[in-house]
């Protein structure tokens, strides 16, 4: 079991009280503060060497005040009274400065204040596992890939824990701890004579879990397969491009869900708040409840409490409970709801946000970020073979590769790690240099086959970027295997012709 909190609970609680009292005295109508620590451990192996081992501890707080209808925010990587009091003063000054260029008063809803303690359940605290054990683990992975045919292999293990106290002027006191691990590798095979090379990245996703996940996830076995497959890719023929049916493995589809559905349904984008960097959305406020996003098979759910999810937590960084972020985003193909953070809902005529805030560090401003977002599996039996069986000529895509999408989340292009031809309902030979390109609504409306729970898998990333300055969020996406008709598949070698 994980230890109790590392945080000095009395200290952060006193500092929270100090900040909120000072903010109230300064005239703030609302204030909240996040205080805590984030521990990030990074181990990286290259072939037969443990190249780096870094253990990083970051302490700090971030204070947000609403003063005269304007936000002010100030943060520091310190946990002491003088820094907190200075931050109250600076945050209030920021609010007064922002007010001079603000159109109207900020309106925020009130989340019922709660006092709670939440801790992600883990069996083995990854930060208690020795550096030696982690080095052995990673070197066994690189060895497995190289023994199986790779010329090179890098492997890494990232272990992170956030401990944070959230407190606000309504009386909320939420102490939380979440833990995540990312075991991964990249295997490379080369052909010196031709100067060509091929890579195969790990298909094992990051998880909200302890070290027990790293031990049980099969990374070493995947590395052995990857070593052989990287070499096989070197000799595989290029894909024949064209419009065809594709069957996407959940190891690929999670990223497509993230980019096309996850980001397009973020309300701050729709409001234009990310127009200068992360982008806006093709969705408009009036489309809620109206737009046919995809086929009837498409039901996508926000799920803050998904076991093993990277964005799983008891309360978000606005203090909203997990149950607020359990909602349908798309139901049977119809767009149902936005993801929202504090102060956004009223802009589209809704009464309250739905628990989708995250600050990537106590010193960062909370913004709208995704909870875990997943495509529901088919309730009727449907295996991967069934999906492939319904394809005359097509492509089966495994793993996430190159990815890119326009700033309104319409035109996308995704690669993969492994590609196999489908001919007459059967899996054919491996091909390489493939990517699929599409437009979000057309793509999801072409969904005509959905795997059942037996094909469902949770994917995810440690590193979704958004906002200025950029914040990095972890998030998981579950998906079954799925079949899409009439998708444009390109051959990267021909793109370069």
């Amino acid at each position: 079991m994980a230890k109790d909190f590392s945080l000095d609970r009395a200290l952060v609680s006193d500092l929270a009280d100090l900040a909120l009292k000072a903010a109230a005295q300064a005239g703030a109508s609302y204030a909240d503060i996040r205080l805590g620590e984030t521990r990030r451990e990074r181990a990286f192996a290259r072939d037969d060497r443990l190249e780096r081992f870094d253990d990083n501890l970051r302490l700090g707080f971030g204070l947000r005040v609403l003063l005269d209808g304007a936000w002010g925010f100030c943060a520091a990587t310190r946990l002491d009274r003088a820094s907190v009091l200075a931050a109250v003063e600076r945050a209030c000054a920021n609010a007064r400065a922002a007010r001079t260029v603000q159109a109207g008063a900020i309106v925020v809803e009130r989340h019922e204040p709660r006092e709670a303690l939440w801790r992600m359940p883990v069996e083995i605290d990854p930060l208690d596992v020795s550096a030696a054990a982690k080095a052995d683990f990673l070197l066994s992975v690189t060895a497995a890939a190289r023994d199986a045919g790779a010329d090179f292999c890098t492997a890494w293990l990232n272990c992170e824990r956030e401990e944070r106290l959230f407190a606000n002027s309504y009386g909320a006191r939420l102490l939380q701890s979440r833990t995540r691990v990312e075991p991964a590798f990249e295997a490379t095979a080369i052909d010196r004579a031709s100067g060509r090379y091929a890579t195969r990245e790990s298909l094992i996703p990051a998880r909200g879990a302890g070290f027990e996940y790293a031990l049980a996830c099969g990374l070493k076995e995947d590395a052995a397969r990857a070593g052989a497959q990287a070499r096989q890719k070197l000799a595989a023929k290029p894909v024949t491009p064209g419009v065809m049916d594709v069957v996407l493995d959940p190891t690929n589809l999670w990223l497509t869900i993230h980019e096309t559905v996850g980001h397009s349904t973020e309300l701050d984008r729709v409001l234009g708040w990310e127009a200068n960097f992360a982008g806006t959305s093709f969705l408009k406020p009036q489309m809620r409840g109206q737009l046919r996003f995809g086929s009837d098979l498409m039901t996508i759910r926000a799920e803050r409490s998904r076991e093993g999810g990277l964005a799983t937590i008891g309360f978000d960084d606005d203090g909203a409970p997990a149950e607020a972020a359990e909602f349908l985003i798309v139901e049977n193909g119809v767009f149902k709801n936005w993801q929202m953070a504090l102060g956004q809902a009223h802009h589209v005529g809704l009464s309250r946000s739905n628990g989708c805030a995250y600050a990537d560090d106590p010193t960062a401003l909370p913004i709208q970020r995704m909870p875990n977002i997943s495509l529901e599996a088919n309730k009727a039996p449907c295996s991967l073979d069934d999906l492939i069986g319904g394809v005359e000529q097509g492509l089966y895509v495994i793993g996430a590769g190159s990815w890119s999408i326009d700033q309104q989340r319409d035109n996308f292009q995704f690669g993969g790690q492994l590609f196999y031809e489908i001919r007459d309902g059967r899996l054919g030979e491996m091909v390489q240099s493939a990517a699929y390109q599409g437009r979000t609504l057309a793509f999801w409306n072409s969904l005509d086959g959905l795997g059942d729970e037996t094909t469902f898998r949770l994917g995810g990333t440690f590193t979704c970027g958004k906002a200025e300055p950029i914040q990095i969020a972890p998030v998981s996406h579950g998906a079954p295997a799925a079949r899409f008709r009439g998708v444009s598949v390109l051959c990267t070698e021909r793109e370069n012709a």
Partner: protein
Amino acid sequence: MFLSSDDVKALTDRLLARSRADACAISVSGGEAQNLRFARGAATTNTAASDVRVRVSSHVGGRVGSVSTTSLDDAALSAALARSEEIARLLPVDPEYVAPLGPQNYSESRRYDPSIGELRLDALALKVEAVAKACAARGVNAFGCAASGRRFEAMATSNGLFAYDPRGEIELSVTARNKTDRWSGWAGVNRLAADALDATEVGRRAAEKAAREDEPVDLKPGDYPVVLEPAATAELASWLIHALDARAADEGRSFFSRPGRGARQGELLFDEKLTLRVDPGDGLAPSGALGYEGVPHRARDFIAKGAVESFYRSRAWAQKTDAEAVPHSASFHMGGGDASLEEMVRATKHGVLVTRLWYTNWLDPRELLLTGLTRDGNFLIENGRVTRPVRNMRFNESLAKLFRKIEALGPSERVWSAFHEGGACAAPPLLVERFSFASRSSGI
């Protein structure tokens, strides 16, 4: 928390004296930053933050353990030192181990004006107000971010190295969108001091691009002559310079690998007009003085007149291959030419003017094949004139091919970059005869 060189030196001396490792390297970084974001001409969010980080790397028997902390408390620093030594002792011996560097000569990098530290959010609010007015005057909405800050990077080792490298900047980027949300334009700048940043001019440039009432045209995907504005050129060039990894090239894992063995150093792979240079003394885009692992950045051509002159190379790989260690740089200067952007447009019969690019990513790094999209100011060029907006498109383009034939280059200029990212890039407007647009996008 912006520490002075003397403060850092006192801290690192104290820590190094306590080290019980064979050798020790200490990196200290920190700073202060603030920003003000806006949408539709009005403030949305703002932040002010200070941070500091001390990273201790202990070297024990050919192994290195690193621990960092944001606490400057004596007990926390001692704990970090002890933990780094403990980690090092637990790790396997590194067959490519390198000891910490000794004293180095660092170039002077002019990236810091102390006045930047005095700025508060009201100074940024004035910039935002000026942008909003400039955009309102053209009937378009302003979205963007104003930011300022100062940071330092420092390093000290038990072998006698000490380096301290400060930088500071104010930056402003503006996306203007017309009132119907059907077209957009963008502009951005970085300056060393607040009074050098003309926010009205930045707003005016973004508004000029966005203030179009005519419906954007859809171009058929295919190859077109393209004029890339400096921000777009810099985006492409950044991928090229980041691909110049010596280890990957030597090991056969790179476009820059020579069939058989070795890297394509010295080969003329690109147009002779292409030069990519890193220089701490660069007048437009100075790199930092202090590079990765403490290796100094020196004035260096990575690509000179189309030939690959340098690769970046870690100290471990440099030791293994008996070559010079060269730090990777987030800053670079792509050399320019004499043609103006207007001349390039005049020389184009039927092509596209591209303001900036978005979500670029390797599609196939083996061939330097990059994908991405145009964004915030894509225009049709007809018979030597910019005529109307062109809806954004996805490109799939090999940088090897793109930079192999450059028709014309304009004067290089500093292009906008986010302060927190640390790099400074300068690039010219660029005319190429063939740029491959692969598909249409409705994204505006």
